[in-house]
């Protein structure tokens, strides 16, 4: 393998994995409180009381990390007309026919969609979470508002989990992607194949 292309610097990668680990913690502790099927996850956090105590702190710190991550990558996530075309043809990609897809810049429309889904869901999770955070904030919130907040919180978390499943699967599916977020580099052929416009823009084709 010849030269490697840098895709993520150290700061972005470290921050990404901090957010990812906190998502794992907040997600597992949240799922434990969502459905009895997941109640055994409380054992990972020292029991039900600890799970309930820790979950909101995991969430708040995750959001702080995501805010930094957001500003590290958001410029590359603006939606373009090209992205809409990509979405219309996405079923071909799912059948493995990537060569029939419109050329992609740093992120494809799926990655952008997941990014904005996470941003919106985390905002909703943050705001609604505070509204029924016992014992600190819930007492100041009328009970009907809390009922609405808890429902919205669960719904946003559900969408977020689906988004993460897509995100993680895409990283497993597209070989060479994991390296981008662990080591920070990708091979030229990976960049050329999956992100040709980015490959051109950074001048790697020269």
């Amino acid at each position, binding site marked *: *393998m*010849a030269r490697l292309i840098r895709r993520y610097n150290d700061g972005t990668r470290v921050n990404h994995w901090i957010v990812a680990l906190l998502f794992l913690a907040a997600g597992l502790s949240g799922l*434990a*409180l*969502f*459905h*009895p*099927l*997941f*109640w055994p996850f409380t054992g990972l956090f020292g029991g*039900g*009381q600890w*799970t*309930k*105590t820790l979950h909101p702190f995991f969430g708040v710190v995750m959001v702080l990390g995501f805010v930094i991550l957001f500003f590290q990558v958001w410029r590359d996530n603006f939606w373009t007309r090209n992205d809409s075309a990509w979405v219309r043809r996405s079923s071909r990609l*799912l*059948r*493995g*026919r*990537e*060569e029939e*897809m419109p*050329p992609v810049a740093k992120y494809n429309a799926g990655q952008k969609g997941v990014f904005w889904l996470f941003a919106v869901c985390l905002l909703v999770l943050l705001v609604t979470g505070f509204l*029924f955070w*016992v*014992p600190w904030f*819930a007492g100041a919130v009328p*009970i*009907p508002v*809390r*009922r*609405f907040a*808890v*429902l919205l919180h*669960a719904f946003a978390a*559900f969408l977020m*989990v*689906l988004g993460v*499943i*897509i995100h993680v*699967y895409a990283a*497993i*599916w*597209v*070989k*060479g992607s994991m390296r981008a977020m662990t080591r920070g580099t990708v*091979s*030229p*052929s*990976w960049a*050329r*194949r*999956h992100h*040709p416009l980015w*490959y*051109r823009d950074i001048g790697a*084709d020269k």
Partner: protein
Amino acid sequence: MSSLQSLDIAARSATTKPTPQARQHVTEVAKLIDVSSCIGCKACQVACMQWNDLRDEVGVNVGQYDNPSDLTPQSWTVMRYAEVQMKQPDESTRLEWLIRKDGCMHCEDPGCLKACPAPGAIVKYTNGIVDFISEHCIGCGYCVSGCPFDIPRISRTDNRAYKCSLCSDRVAVGLEPACAKVCPTGAIRFGSKEDMLEFGAQRVAELKERGYAQPAVYDPAGVGGTHVVYVLQHGDQPGLYNDLPADPTISPLVALWKGITKPLATAAMIGAAVVGFFHYVKVGPLETDETDDDADDGRPRRRDEDRVRGE
């Protein structure tokens, strides 16, 4: 309060399979609170404190007789005093003092139990009593959101929810609740729900004879009936009694959150992961041919297998 009760459990929070059902002939109990016979002496509050070993902090006077002014983790029952001007048939008004002993209503369909995420932290016994099993409580406050009567209170000391247990420990050994035992006017009675409804109907008839237009037994059907029932002089206006809800139900938001959406969402999340796995098995990964590094035409490569086929 404690899981060590010799009472059969009919429903258990965060539990998806039925509880043991073999013993079916348990009599449903009820506490009847006859507001029309209550003199507001607060003996029931004192008895509750004494039996349950509760000692609330001494509060401050808030300009009315309510003391404490609200339910707390240490005050599981509170007398609420309402002074109302009731219009008489001759257009004059009469001051009435409506004193309602507030506390858990022990719903047949308990919203707290439905909302609770901790397995076994809230149970409903076969006799109808809804009890918080405090050692399993995680202090999340979902029961507060679930309750149509705003009853549970979370302790800041131990982060657990508390409310009236209907003295489940006393009832389990054949005693009546402490408040019912101590009530000097017989305004609080305890027995089978059937007997209590029968007694309530008698009281309603007596109140009608005394000139009340619409006395009624308060046993709201929206929560499947309750195991604490009131006799109200003005049964058509429960809101007079410090905002007793006229038709309490579990909020549709809670029903939606804890109803069918929960198993559906769970299935969708697990399903998404399973679909991903089978997609990988069927379609296979998008791989890059790393031997291609020097061919810089900037175009995506055709799939490897297509190329293999073409060779």
